[in-house]
């Protein structure tokens, strides 16, 4: 019985694998004609650096990230409770902390000190990667029904022009959890600057379920409150 079954299986697999000699050239040419007229859909978050020369830079960045995690981890060991820890920037000590920490997400090292409630958010955020840096004055925020914290702001100073050019509004989505997950809202080539910070929040929300696909666990720590 086993032999019979194996023999039938072999016949099925052999039939399935037979050459059919499809001519793909016509389909290919038609598809490429359509490709010429089709714009790529660029995500609102980093999908990886496109510079094939950056392998060593990535290695260095990875080593730096490990160092950041180690240092941050050491600093946080005694039982950080959020507001009591020394922030990298303290824009408004009296406001309630919304997201405070140092982390690496999508290869970008960042610090965030966001304070406020609801849409009213202030604070600062910095991003750096392989010698490029950017600073953001945080301006707005939103917490979704699903608990996702969306924060946006204006890039005030930047050498990190690929993703965070000065004068543009950018943002970050933070999903509470262990670990926290994060997603950047970056500027795409040709994007005009958003006139209002709320545009960042709206753009995040417009991504719908795609937003969840972009979220990645951070390295480091962000305290999300209140």
């Amino acid at each position, binding site marked *: 019985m086993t032999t019979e079954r194996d023999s039938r299986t072999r016949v099925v697999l052999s039939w399935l694998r037979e050459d059919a000699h*499809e001519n793909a050239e016509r389909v290919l040419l038609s598809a490429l004609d359509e*490709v010429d007229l089709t714009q790529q859909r660029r*995500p609102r978050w980093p999908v990886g650096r496109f510079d094939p020369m950056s392998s060593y830079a990535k290695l260095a960045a990875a080593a730096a990230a490990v160092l950041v995690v180690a240092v941050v981890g050491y600093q946080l060991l005694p039982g950080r409770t959020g507001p009591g820890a020394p922030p990298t920037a303290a824009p408004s000590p009296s406001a309630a902390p919304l997201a405070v920490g140092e982390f690496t997400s999508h290869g970008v090292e960042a610090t965030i000190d966001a304070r406020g409630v609801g849409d009213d958010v202030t604070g600062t955020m910095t991003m750096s990667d392989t010698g490029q840096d950017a600073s953001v004055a945080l301006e707005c925020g939103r917490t979704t029904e699903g608990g996702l914290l969306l924060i946006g702001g204006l890039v005030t100073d930047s050498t990190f022009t690929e993703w965070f050019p000065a004068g543009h509004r950018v943002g970050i989505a933070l999903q509470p959890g262990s670990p926290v997950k994060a997603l950047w809202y970056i500027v795409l080539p040709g994007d005009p600057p958003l006139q209002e910070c709320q545009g960042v929040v709206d753009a995040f929300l417009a991504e719908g379920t795609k937003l969840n696909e972009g979220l990645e666990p951070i390295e480091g720590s962000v305290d999300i409150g209140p």
Partner: protein
Amino acid sequence: MDQDLVIRAQAGDRAAYGLLAADLAKRFLATSRRILRDIDLAEDATQQALVAVWRELPQLRDPARFDAWSYRVLVRACYAEGRRTRAWSPNLRLLPADEPADHGSMDDVILRDQLERAIRRLSVDHRAVLVLRHYADMPIEQVAQVLDIPVGTVNSRLHHAMRAMRAALDADARPAAAEATR
């Protein structure tokens, strides 16, 4: 797959994508034809998938996973074609003009007829598992990844599909096939 081409195409290099697509087109057409069992539907699915891969490529976060990701795009296109053409063509093109007609005896023809009928009775879901596993030679885990279903579901569908295909070879089915091809 040349990852450098993938990265260049992600960045919008149409020439790089042309090279990628030349390779993809052959694999896509062969795979979609085996899933959809119709060359016209397969060509449509392949063209749609090639355009979709170009359009969505910047969203692929790990270029090393291009192969699995591109198959996923293709299978979605096959599902779309399958939905669009619910009435499957009843005519069995056992030996299409572009295939070599040297497959031998009437027994072979009958055998192919039975297998063709059997696979057409399967759902596109089952065909996709069967083709990805046994034609594209993907490991079960990769099939699960491509189809975005649990490994257990892949195994279950594969078992069902293979059982149905083997059953088509049962001796008592042969006479019916012979009648049907007259």
